[in-house]
């Protein structure tokens, strides 16, 4: 039974520092500020920030656009299309972070990865990162190369050696040309639960996806 693939992860409150609703006047003021910031980067013809705008934003924030923090920013916005931020998304994101000016945004973004880890929402973000890469309407899996890049960005900081090994495996194997959401989800859990020094704790009769069974076999052979 094919169903429309779920594009959005369940929304959960993240870095919402200001819980109290701001008075109308200041809110409008805030929104306006945010809108003005938006206009700075947006492409007028499509009324969204396009890739060029994002690059500009990144350089202003002093964060490389391949950094995980930008991806996290996209997540706070619940951005739907990779490389583009719509006005609503922009507003949503900035409100979520509780900022409205560039310096404040900069500060928030710099500390964003720590915030996400602290608040326990990393898994939600992790799932979003995958879905963000689905370009087509009915697409369910992402090609290996993009996956590798994504792994690097998203999990690289936390598990550098493991990610490198997994990337190497994925690039050399030929069974899988793409990875789906279920498999993607298992990678994070795998890195958290299985120690690479001693693979004995890995039991292939458990419900790990076959791609990880093969990965572990590959690791064992290497030793």
């Amino acid at each position: 039974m094919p169903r429309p693939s779920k594009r959005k992860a369940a929304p959960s409150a993240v870095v919402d520092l200001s819980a109290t609703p701001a008075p109308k006047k200041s809110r409008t003021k805030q929104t306006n500020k945010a809108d003005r910031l938006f206009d700075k980067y947006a492409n007028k013809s499509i009324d969204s920030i396009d890739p060029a705008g994002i690059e500009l934003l990144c350089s202003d924030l002093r964060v490389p656009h391949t950094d995980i923090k930008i991806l996290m920013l996209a997540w706070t916005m619940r951005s739907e299309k990779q490389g583009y931020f719509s006005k609503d998304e922009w507003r949503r994101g900035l409100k979520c972070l509780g900022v409205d000016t560039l310096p404040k945004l900069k500060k928030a973004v710099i500390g964003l990865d720590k915030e996400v880890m602290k608040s326990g929402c990393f898994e939600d973000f992790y799932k979003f990162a995958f879905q963000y890469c689905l370009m087509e309407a009915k697409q369910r899996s992402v090609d290996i190369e993009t996956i590798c890049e994504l792994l690097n960005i998203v999990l690289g900081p936390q598990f550098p050696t493991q990610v490198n090994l997994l990337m190497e495996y994925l690039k050399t194997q030929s069974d899988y040309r793409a990875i789906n959401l279920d498999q993607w989800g298992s990678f994070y859990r795998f890195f958290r639960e299985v120690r690479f020094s001693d693979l004995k704790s890995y039991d292939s009769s458990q419900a790990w996806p076959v791609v990880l069974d093969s990965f572990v076999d590959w690791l064992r052979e290497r030793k």
Partner: protein
Amino acid sequence: MSNQKKRNFQIEAFKHRVVMDPKYADKTWNILEHAIHEIYNHNASGLSFEELYRNAYNMVLHKFGERLYSGLVTTMTAHLKDIANSVETAQGESFLEEINRKWNDHNRALQMIRDILMYMDRTYIPSTHKTPVHELGLNLWRENVIYSSQIRTRLLTILLDFVQRERTGEVIDRGLTRNIIKMLLDLGPSVYAQEFEGPFLRVSAEFYSVESQKFIECCDCGEYLKKAEKRLNEEIDRVNHYLDSRTEKKITNVVEKEMIEDHMLRLINMENSGLVNMLCDDKYEDLGRMYNLFRRVTDGLSKIREVMTSHIRESGKVLVTDPERLKDPVEFVNRLLDEKDKYDKIINLAFNNDKSFQNALNSSFEYFINLNQRSPEYISLFVDDKLRKGLKGVSEDDVEITLDKVMMLFRYLQEKDVFEKYYKQHLAKRLLSGKTVSDDAERSLLVKLKTECGYQFTSKLEGMFMDMKTSEDTMQGFYSSHPELGDGPTLTVQVLTTGSWPTQPSAPCNLPAEVSTLCEKFRSYYLGTHTGRRLSWQTNMGSADIKANFGKGQKHELNVSTYQMCVLMVFNDADRLSYKEIEQATQIPASDLKRCLQSLALVKGRNVLRKEPMSKDVAEDDSFFVNDKFSSKLYKVKIGTIVAQKESEPEKLETRQRVEEDRKPQIEAAIVRIMKSRKCLDHNNLVAEVTKQLQTRFLANPTEVKKRIESLIEREFLERDESDRKFYRYLA
């Protein structure tokens, strides 16, 4: 006498007191004592039973019971001591005889004495709780004779010596021994056990321990078992003849332990004569003996079963992996059937049809038959051979027997779906070439398969038979509605329903004109009565009979495949044709064409064409001619072959791939079925359930099942549970 005189009788009291003779007791006792002496001295005939009884009675009556009793004890003891002495002095052989004789005497005497003292036995003794006379007699005998220091050990030694001598083959006096043993049994419950049985068992254990060690060094397994059996039977015989029956179990246990249990493994594994050799050489008697002996011992049978199982598995493994054997599928299967028959016979004749052995045999066969992945194919080829020619002229009963044997092998297969695929292919070839030896046999086998595997397995196969029948009717209808075609070539069409028959892609080729017009007529006829259907000619499966006239006047009728017919017909218009020209004219695909030309030009006795150059293979620049020198002894020459053959390597891979592909939807269907009813299930249980459900068709690979689960997750039929990722949830 009349009662005229009436006189009153008066009874007057005693006027004086009765005084007991003070010496009464002694006097009476003396009489009795004397009597006892006489009895023991075999002089009882002169005694008056009545008098003695009365004396004893009086003694008890006048309260001299005590005197009587103690007197009895003393007297008897004295006599017994005498007896003991006389026994002790007996020499050699006569020792036992003397005991026996004296024992009989004593019993007789005791009987008489007890009779005499009956009154005391019944009144004085019970009230004073003393031992009754008979028992007293036995006890005194025991204490004074048997337990006498001189006699006790000597008795045991002699008895054991008797047994030993008998074991070494001498003849002994069994009657005498029996009497002695009976005496021991009569003397009390533990006397026999202590004075004889205990030591007997110990000594026997030692004896057999030594003997078994000696035998096992010098005998082979079969001989040893014979000896053990003989000894066992001897002991049983011994017990029956002169020992207590309760000793039988004990002594047989001793023999079993010493001769069998202690040497079990050594016997089984004995080189050149052990269990494996017996199995190989069909030594039914020896095997039967081993079975009967070993079943008396704990774990005996399970050891035999173990060794037999591993032997069958090993030799089975060799059988199925031997490349020589694998060359001929029919021989291969015959060999399997022979193996099964061999072991069935052994289990029947030697192992008492023991069910646990049957089971071990079955599991071993299942194990090694499935070691070779081609077993399903070979079994199908065996069936094919039988149904083509093997069962020709065979009685109905024998046909059933053969088919049942096939079913037996089929049951061992784990990959029944692979068998189904091959069986379908081979059946198709048989049906289409009309080469089946007996329709009844085919149907009978189909019924057996249906009973075993269910309707699903055979529904398509039945469809194939149906198509054949329907086609016959169709052909009749065709010719009766086209009477004008009676003179032309005779067409026989088999219309095959696409789903039921094994699919083979068939590229159309150019049929000769006469044939194609006929085919078109048929097509329109058929579609006239069956609108909405599509017919496609399977030119790679047909055959033709053509009459050929050769250059030197030879006339032959050639039975060829459709492709071959197309090629040959082209030569009606040309004497010489190049490969390319033939290809052009017939449009037959290259690989098929090459094979076709090979079969027409390069096979001895069938070379209706000639090739230039005369090389072994067909090359694209070759030329072909009709072989005017063609000769054959037969008028009808068969060139086309559509016989089922063992698949080549690439074909085998292809079939296996197809089987694997077919399995995927079956696995998925099973997963969905199970999850739909269970709603939520963990991974291991799901895999186990799926495997169980698919067992009747094939052995599901856990990794493959996992892949299917993942595919179903991707297509959102299932999802992983949020909290415990080992659990799957059904998504409606």
